[in-house]
């Protein structure tokens, strides 16, 4: 009986109403944004699954009763990009050939530069840092023509190496800052401990810092892969027609004026082009957020 008054009153955590005004606002905004971005995707997917008669006769918002992957097959294998009709797969492999080396080279160079700046200060390293910071604000359009001349002088204009070089150079300022800030945010005493243990420049980088830096490497890979994959301009300018990346080929497919517009093929080709960055975000979004947060803590 002595317990009764106690048991009668509230106990445990205070129950929260499911929908508070704040939550209502947040959810509304999120849902509206999601619709805004998902709706075009929805149209693209259903259109790519229709055949051309359905597109001409039917309603654009209504999914097809007879989905077919013909348009996808055509987009990949035989859509015409200007003179050739080999589909967008040519562009896909070109994009791979451009993205993989550019990403690897720029990340290797940027991580080592950032590491050197953060932990092995050299004369003028602060000046160098400032220049780097400023240079990442210069509009890149300014540098397009000089780079055309430079690559031409190097004898690589309109080749794969030219576009890889350009992507690498343009990736460096931001990536170097990213790595520098990340390495500067690691405990200084860790670096000192490794020095006392006799570890040198490379040993500290590979054995102590790199294993701790998976998040920032992930961020760098995502930034570079998506950035380079989505690039259009550098591809058109520096790669040369045989090396046009997927984005450029897509543009050519959509704009090639042969017969009526094959909207289903265009849509399929577009989705195929966007698939790589989409997949990357999808599988590494968690690490991306974590890495950005980790890099942002200290500067």
């Amino acid at each position, binding site marked *: 009986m002595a317990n009764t008054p106690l048991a009668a009153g509230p106990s445990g955590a205070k129950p929260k109403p499911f929908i508070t005004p704040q939550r209502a606002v947040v959810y509304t905004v999120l849902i509206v944004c999601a619709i805004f971005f998902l709706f075009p995707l929805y149209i693209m997917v259903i259109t790519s699954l229709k055949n051309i008669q359905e597109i001409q006769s039917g309603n654009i918002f209504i999914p097809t009763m007879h989905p077919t992957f013909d348009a996808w097959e055509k987009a990949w294998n035989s859509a015409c990009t200007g003179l050739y009709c080999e589909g967008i797969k040519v562009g896909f492999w070109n994009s791979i050939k451009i993205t993989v080396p550019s990403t690897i080279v720029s990340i290797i160079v940027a991580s080592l530069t950032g590491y050197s700046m953060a932990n092995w200060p050299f004369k003028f390293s602060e000046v160098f840092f400032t220049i780097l910071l400023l240079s990442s604000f210069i509009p890149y359009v300014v540098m397009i023509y000089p780079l055309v001349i430079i690559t031409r002088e190097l004898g690589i204009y309109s080749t794969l190496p030219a576009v890889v070089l350009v992507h690498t150079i343009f990736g460096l300022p931001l990536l170097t800052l990213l790595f520098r800030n990340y390495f500067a945010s690691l405990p200084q005493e860790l670096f*000192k*401990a*490794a*020095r*006392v*243990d*006799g570890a040198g420049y490379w040993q500290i980088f590979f*054995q102590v810092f790199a294993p*701790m830096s998976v998040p920032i490497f992930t961020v760098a890979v995502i930034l570079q892969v998506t950035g380079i994959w989505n690039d259009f301009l550098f591809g058109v300018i520096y790669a040369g027609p045989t090396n046009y990346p997927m984005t450029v080929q897509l543009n050519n497919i959509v704009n090639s004026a042969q017969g009526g517009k094959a909207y289903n093929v265009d849509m399929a080709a577009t989705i195929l082009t966007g698939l790589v960055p989409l997949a990357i975000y999808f599988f590494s979004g968690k690490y991306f957020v974590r890495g950005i947060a980790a890099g942002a803590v200290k500067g």
Partner: protein
Amino acid sequence: MHSVSVKNLTLKFGSAEVLKNLNLDVEEGEFIVLLGPSGCGKSTLLNCLAGLLELTEGQIHIKGKNVTWAEPSERGIGMVFQSYALYPQMTVRGNMSFGLKIAGLPKAEIAKRVDRASEILQIGPLLDRKPGALSGGQRQRVAIGRALVREVDVFLFDEPLSNLDAKLRSELRVELKRLHNRLKNTMIYVTHDQIEALTLADRIAIMRGGIIQQLDAPQTIYNRPANLFVAGFIGSPAMNFIKGETVDGGKRFKFGDVSLDLAGYEGGAILDRPKAIIGLRPEHLSMVDEAIPGHTIPAVVEIDEPMGADSLVWLLAEGRQMSVRVPVEHRPAPGKQVHLKVDIAKASLFDETNELRI
């Protein structure tokens, strides 16, 4: 031959002079504590010794060898950091053997050293864990172990216990003392905890603004501080300082209506100094009911703070606040008029103009 010898060391960060023409000789097997307020250059000095900072001027010798330009790993030192600084992706064993592997020691030798160190520090069961799965105390033990396996003559500690809670800190403090008694290495230990300094050190170096103010045994530092700064820095609660003058050819110290007899003072020639300061530790004062001319200061009790066995009593004497440590059963009532008896043999006199002990 000194174990560690620092000669005319100057270190500048840009234009800021952080260490100023500093000299320090450490004997073989000595436990030296560097003590001082935050920012006085303790860590900087330690980093210089370790070879992690380049000196602006001066030399460092370790075991008679000039190591001023030697790499950290070539100096025969091991270092323990405040933040433990363990490699997070390596196991405890990996952490302890990292340096030895780099030095190219044979596997059997590495295993032997790691086992010996982990036995000394009782971290055997932790060897296959990662640092993330250890408590703070265990991590610091591993960090000490990492220095131990190097089997060097000189250990450098930078506030190794200050990230631990009070109980663990006192436990590890005793353990460090035991370790030193067993290994007999030279140890140079940075802290800003007076208790650590007083309990561990063979000699304490009190630093301020990049200059060593006094380098002496703990008891000497405590009883005969070389200057006002050291006197005020060491001891908690702080020493009572009273400004006054010395008169009668240095026989008496006068302030307000009080005149103290200086016969029995242990120090140099007192002389007549118009500006002098007497320093009296709270535990070197006692409360008496009757005035003894020349030996007591009249005072009124304000408040007292019982602290277990002792009580710290705050009083007003001649308009100045003073503190006295008394056994808790002798606590006086607030407002009571008492007399503070001065033990002049334990007092410190300073010349106010140069702040040095007389």
